[in-house]
């Protein structure tokens, strides 16, 4: 899989013939690698940690395996193990190959993008080196092209193209810039959500401007200048164009003369493709670099415009490639509805229920570890500090419970049911109560440090930032207190504030029953902007980069630009959105009173998958290590693959 790249020292020893040398090494290894006996057998345990399951790919220098990480004994965590067998006899070359391998590991380790596999580990044993990577279950684009009868739908290719531009833009703007140099269908994986993941960074090159790089790349996809030994971001854009041309026409450029795309006009071969899309691809495949798009970002913009003009992106199947229905990893049934949210800590999931119990479940298999009974229904989210879990209950008490034993440590009585979740900071637990008070209780002793009477019932969960405690109440007042309990500022909405606030940078965001998403200056309380929702909202918003996500009783999940308060997208569910969103990587997870948990793409609002429960979802999904935990009014806790 890893194409070797000679280092400069090997250049010097064999001047002038660099590209040929490279190929020769690959071939000699291919021949040496032809017997399968050197592949690791299934069941083999590598580095006392990775149990090999099966070979999922064979490359020039070794195999790629699917393996299970045995450091997670309770769950099946799959990884991809990429092997490189170093058979070079020349010590310089051996060194070069290992350096190249380590370079791939180092490049991957610095990258963080949804379309780039995460690296977990790398190591060498004897004459083999291994990369341990995120396992992507899906298919590569080459296989998809070959297996598809007829042509791939244009909208599907366009959606992939936009994602590929996005990841190329990320690489090219990395510091220092990275040229992928081997864009081709077999290096593009599509997972079961239909999302693109770029694999094989073996020859990715950190770009030094003005420096002529070594010619490595896949013939047929590489641009003219790459053959002259130049690799720039424009080369990746050309190769992307070649990949898209291949995907739309099913004509493999490796079987055609180089740079002959103009002789195979896309629409002549596949008339279903729009003229707009063809024009963008043609521009990427211009012979002269200066006639192409100048950046992946520019090409992406052009592709998005194609989508806008032709409207073809609206034809996208909502669930991508996913065909099977989502099956939970496990479910756990309580004795009554679950209205609240869960917390995970050291492999234990904590969740309260209307059946009065706080449950501690094994997050891996959903088995009950203990349950702790209170005297009222629980809708709050547990908070953890050291060895204790803290939970408010409808019995008017805050309970501190030992994580190990599930036994009570202390309880604190308020004068009303508790619907506001506890927050922990500065040795105290902060929470509100239906008795109108905000409480600060000492974590160790369970004694009151202070409480403040506000103008109404507090069901919103306090948020702590900038040494301030932010909380709203049912009378529509929103407060910023300091740690001594003094009011720093107050803001009044037109109706109650049930949802909880969040603070990002200098701004605090919350929703109100008056149907507004508010953005307030966190230090002084000025209104920075407000956004009208279709109806009232009890949702706690979530923020990802420049987008804030919330929901409302009109059934929509909204995404709003955090700087200019403009709507980015909205997604319709079948009932009120009273569950709050969680953002994990590039996706939004949000439940609705229609009983469905939705997974939407953050930037576009496109549905990736949904999972139907038998009752309204009012809690916030908890996501940890690619697993979503959600409770439903159907009494069940579900664990699902994110």
């Amino acid at each position, binding site marked *: 899989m890893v194409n070797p790249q000679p280092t400069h020292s090997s250049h010097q020893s064999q001047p002038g013939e660099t590209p040929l040398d490279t190929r020769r090494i690959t071939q000699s290894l291919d021949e040496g690698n032809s017997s399968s006996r050197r592949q690791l057998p299934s069941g083999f345990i590598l580095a006392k940690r990775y149990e090999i399951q099966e070979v999922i790919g064979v490359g020039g220098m070794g195999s790629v395996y699917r393996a299970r990480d045995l450091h997670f004994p309770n769950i099946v965590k799959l990884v991809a193990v990429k092997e490189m067998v170093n058979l070079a006899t020349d010590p310089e070359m051996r060194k070069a190959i290992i350096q190249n391998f380590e370079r791939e590991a180092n490049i991957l380790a610095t990258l963080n993008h949804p379309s780039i596999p995460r690296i977990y580990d790398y190591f060498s044993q004897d004459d083999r080196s291994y990369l341990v990577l995120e396992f992507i279950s899906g298919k590569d684009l080459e296989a998809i092209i070959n297996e598809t009868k007829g042509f791939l739908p244009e909208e599907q290719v366009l959606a992939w193209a936009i994602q590929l531009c996005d990841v190329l833009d990320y690489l090219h703007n990395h510091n220092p810039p990275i040229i992928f140099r081997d864009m081709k269908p077999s290096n593009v994986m599509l997972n079961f959500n239909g999302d693109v993941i770029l694999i094989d960074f073996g020859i990715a090159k950190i770009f030094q401007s003005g420096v002529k790089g070594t010619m490595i790349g896949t013939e047929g996809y590489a641009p003219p200048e790459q053959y002259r030994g130049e690799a720039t971001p424009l080369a990746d854009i050309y190769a992307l164009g070649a990949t898209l041309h291949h995907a739309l026409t099913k004509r493999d450029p490796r079987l055609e003369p180089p740079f002959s795309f103009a002789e195979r006009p896309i629409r002549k071969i596949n008339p279903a493709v729009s003229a707009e899309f063809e024009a963008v691809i043609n521009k990427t495949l211009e012979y002269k670099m200066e006639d192409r798009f100048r950046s992946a970002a*520019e090409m992406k*913009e052009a592709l998005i415009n194609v989508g806008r003009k032709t409207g073809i992106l609206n034809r996208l199947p909502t669930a991508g490639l996913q065909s099977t229905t989502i099956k939970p990893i496990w479910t756990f049934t309580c004795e009554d509805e679950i209205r609240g949210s869960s917390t995970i800590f050291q492999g234990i999931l904590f969740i309260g229920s209307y059946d009065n119990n706080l449950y501690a479940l094994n997050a891996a298999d959903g088995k009950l570890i203990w349950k702790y009974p209170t005297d009222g229904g629980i809708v709050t989210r547990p908070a953890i500090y050291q060895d204790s879990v803290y939970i408010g209950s409808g019995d008017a008490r805050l309970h501190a419970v030992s994580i190990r034993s599930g036994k009570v440590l202390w309880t604190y009585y308020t004068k009303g049911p508790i619907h506001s979740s506890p927050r922990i900071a500065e040795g105290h637990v902060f929470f509100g109560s239906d008795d109108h008070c905000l409480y600060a209780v000492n974590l160790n002793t369970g004694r009151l440090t202070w409480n403040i009477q506000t103008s109404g019932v507090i069901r919103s969960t306090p948020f702590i930032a900038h040494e301030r405690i932010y909380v709203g109440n049912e009378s529509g007042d929103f407060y910023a207190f300091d740690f001594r309990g003094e009011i720093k500022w107050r803001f009044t909405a037109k109706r109650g504030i049930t949802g909880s606030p969040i603070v990002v940078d200098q701004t605090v965001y919350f929703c109100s029953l008056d149907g507004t998403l508010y953005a307030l200056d966190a230090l*002084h309380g000025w209104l920075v902007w407000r956004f009208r929702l279709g109806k009232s909202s009890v949702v706690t918003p979530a923020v990802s980069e420049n987008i804030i996500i919330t929901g409302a009783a009109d059934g929509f999940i909204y995404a709003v630009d955090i700087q200019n308060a403009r709507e980015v997208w909205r997604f319709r569910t079948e009932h009120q959105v009273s569950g709050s969103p969680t953002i994990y990587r590039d996706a939004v997870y949000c439940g609705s009173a229609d009983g469905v948990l939705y997974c939407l793409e953050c930037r576009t609002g496109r549905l990736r998958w949904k999972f139907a429960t038998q009752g309204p979802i009012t809690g916030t999904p908890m996501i940890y290590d690619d697993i979503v935990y959600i409770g439903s009014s159907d009494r069940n806790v579900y664990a699902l693959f994110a």
Partner: protein
Amino acid sequence: MLDAFRRLFQRRKTAVDVSTAPLTPDQLEAITGTIGPRTDPPQLIAACGQSVGKQRDLNEDSLLAITATLAGNTNFLPFGLYIVADGMGGHQFGEVASNAAIRTVAGSVLRKFHPYLFHLNSEVPDESLQEIMQIAVAEAQRIIQREAPGSGTTMTAALVLGQQVTIAHVGDSRAYLLHSDGRAEAITRDHSLVKRLEELGHLTPAEAEKYPHRNVLYRALGQGDILEPDIFTLPFPRNGFLMLCSDGLWGVIPEPEIVRIVQESATLQRACQALVSAANAAGGPDNISVILVQLLT
């Protein structure tokens, strides 16, 4: 009197960090960064520069800078309003339009904040910061169309309140964040034909530089029936500067040069004068206006 001195003295003593451990990255940055020791109270400071340039007889640019600091026991409150407007040449009364723009916008914004800043029982404005800017721009649009029909102006305004900057922008004057690491980040998008052509890919940046109709705007205050300003809010750059300027500066001096001049100047005032001088030295083809703002915390 003596007690007061003693208090002062003691307070200062407790504020001194006497640790001898290796410096943390933050401490190092405080020493090596552009910012000196901590400022109490945090202060908003601003300076500006303006010149008719070398090739025009008339100054059609207008600028406005208001800086207020309210500090006391209750709350520290920096408030600033900064506007650059570049009246459109070739139209009559470009200078009238730019003058009307800065005065109308500032008047409208200050009226909203007067009860909040200067009344004893401080009243928070009903509208959001972005709504206040929106209203001010709409008012300016109305006034310009009434007072100087047919004229037009660019307008880039920054309202600084606490640590937030709210920008309202029409045309091709620009707001920049000059970061402490030397980056100049243009946070506004020019509403100009040449920029649009560049965005659409019809012009390369190199071609755009030589494009003959660089001054053609497709959106300007006073022009058209419906005006949609760009309005957005972002945090004030830490250890950096906010800069507003007309194209007489940004179109003449390359961005790295702007950053270099600002970083090498001892004060904001000198930086502004040096920027204006540099633009004039480069030919001074157009009116030059610049405002630099810094938040010392």
